[in-house]
């Protein structure tokens, strides 16, 4: 009897603890969402749940002339989708070549990429800026796409290579015996098998491009070229608390697609991360 009572107590305590954790996890998000429906502009609110709700801030977000939120949203979509496509291609071919073939300088290249990843990214920003200036690519979306895509090789290579390492060699050899060349083996055997890894790489680059405000604000000078992250950061920096509810509406709109993607694909992310850790 005593034992059963203590089990009951333990389960009750566990539920209380979990409820507290969920409150702590959800509070900031709930607060921002509720604020975005709150009338008025200020940060200050008398109650947690606003007394009346309004959609005015969402309307203003897309109609305001000074904000250009619609343009930014489309810009972001363009940059994120193009970076996603280019980076997935680059990461896949690099990882495939380094995982499946043996050639001189292979180990050296792997070590080099490992070492490059250890330099703080900001260190190279100034040089990349000058390079882009000399190529006449400043203030263009192409610059962002190129830099994000090639940068993602260094971040994602080991996850992708680790994945290719685990694919059995037998399938590949069978295809070769059937007469498939290198290119065919890659496109019709390897690519279909590596779907989970492709999804992981595609989404990390997509979200990276979606939320980057540092490099993007350095490169994109004119307001109509901005991405949403740059616009939102500017909004917070220049108006502080004055337009808080508008910020909240913008934040909800930027966060929704990314949050949904993450929730939907969380399994890939964890396996991708642990694969990266195990393989180095």
């Amino acid at each position, binding site marked *: 009897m005593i034992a059963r009572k203590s089990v009951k107590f333990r389960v009750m305590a566990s539920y209380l603890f979990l409820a507290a954790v969920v409150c702590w996890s959800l509070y900031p998000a709930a607060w921002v969402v509720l604020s975005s429906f709150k009338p008025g502009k200020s940060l200050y609110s008398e109650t947690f749940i606003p007394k009346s709700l309004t959609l005015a801030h969402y309307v203003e977000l897309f109609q305001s002339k000074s904000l250009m939120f619609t343009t930014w949203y489309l810009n972001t979509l363009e940059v994120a989708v193009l970076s996603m496509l280019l980076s997935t291609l680059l990461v896949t071919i690099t990882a495939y070549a380094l995982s499946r073939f043996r050639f001189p300088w292979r180990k050296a290249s792997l070590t080099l990429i490992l070492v*490059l990843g250890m330099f703080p990214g900001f260190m190279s920003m100034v040089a990349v800026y000058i*390079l882009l200036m000399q190529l006449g690519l400043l203030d263009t979306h192409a610059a962002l796409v190129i830099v994000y895509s090639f940068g993602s090789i260094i971040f994602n290579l080991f996850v992708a290579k680790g994945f290719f390492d685990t694919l059995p060699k037998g399938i590949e050899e069978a295809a070769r015996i059937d007469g498939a060349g290198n290119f065919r083996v890659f496109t019709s055997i390897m690519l279909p098998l590596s779907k989970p890894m492709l999804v992981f790489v595609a989404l990390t680059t997509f979200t990276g491009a979606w939320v980057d405000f540092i490099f993007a604000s350095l490169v994109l000078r004119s307001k109509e070229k901005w991405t949403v992250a740059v616009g939102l950061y500017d909004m917070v920096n220049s108006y502080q608390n004055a337009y808080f509810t508008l910020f909240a509406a913008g934040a909800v709109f930027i966060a929704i697609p990314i949050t949904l993607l993450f929730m939907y694909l969380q399994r890939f992310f964890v396996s991708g991360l642990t694969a990266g850790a195990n393989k180095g």
Partner: protein
Amino acid sequence: MFLASGFAVTYFASALRQAIWGIATLGDAPSRLVEVDGKSVNIPGDHSINLMIQSLIVLFLLALYIILCIQAARDAYSTGKRRNAGLSPSTFRQTLTYLHDFKFAQLLLVLPAAGILFLTILPIVFMILLAFTNYSSPHHIPPGNLVDWTGFETFVQLFRLSSWSGTFLGVLGWTVLWAVVATATTFASGLAVALVLSQKEVRLKGIWRTLIIIPYAIPQMISLLAMKMMFNGKFGPINQYLSHFGLGELPWLTDPFWAKLTVIIVNMWVGMPLSFLLVSSVLSTIPPDLYEAAKVEGAGRWQQARIITLPFIMFAIAPIIIIQLAGNFNNFNVIYLLTNGGPSNPEYQFAGHTDLLITWLYKLTLNNNIYNIASAIGIILFIIIAAFSIWNYRQTRSFKDEEMTQ
């Protein structure tokens, strides 16, 4: 082919001289005002930094060209051999087939390698070189002034000059403390939540799990900016609740001690879900018969946790903890978006109480244009992270096991 190589040779003959002169001297004529017909005219001089990058580009291209030449020479040699042996030299089409069949990996790697060479390696080499110059505001900023090579002067300045070394040691100390505490708190909280949820009596595991990982799914940029508003001293809801319950308001982001505590708490919010997910995935791999055996031996719940669960988790997660420690060392987002390094510290050079080395580097580069010091800090950061990583690889030995998974 001859035309192309002839062109290349003439190009390098002139460009190389310019490049070597450029990188050796970094220019010798600053831009200056000259009186012409009673008007002062600006004569543009050498722009040291552009000269340096252009020289680097030429040197990188030259290196590529030399590699190509060696390949061509080898190719010509083997063609000659084939001809001497009475075989016809291979056609262009045959060369393509050869590339596809035997050099497929190299073919795939051409584009990525070129991109990494110019977009990553060249910038890093450039920034390392900057640490050995005096490229800094206010006296050595082109085009008004020239930049010169100064050897190890920057490092001497950073370690010996008391104003800089004080800031460096202060920021470094906080960075180490932050990395350790931030990693420990996120791991401990993730572990606690995972252990509670893993009890077999707890129902609706999927729903709890989904709710708990929501902070991980929200883009950090958004949640951190929102947190900044929440902890706002005057209007933020946190202080509002505190004063509502008569506890008085707290200077969450404006007092050095409270700001440090705030960034740690917020980082726990951001990082706990990931630790939770990782620990949960390890928990599910522990074989249940271990617990059965322990029960038979008479071990209580705590003993089971101490003898089976914890060692299992630590063994599987140790490398990830090291990676997180290194990641927190360079955790730019949390600090930059929440406090921007503030509150400012009058004794520091361009840094505040919560600045990490990485945010200090960012400020020195983009706000204050003290590039040489920033670059020296970057090199030091690299050395620290590299040491961490090497130690980690030694521990996990995954590099050695690579072939075994095949």
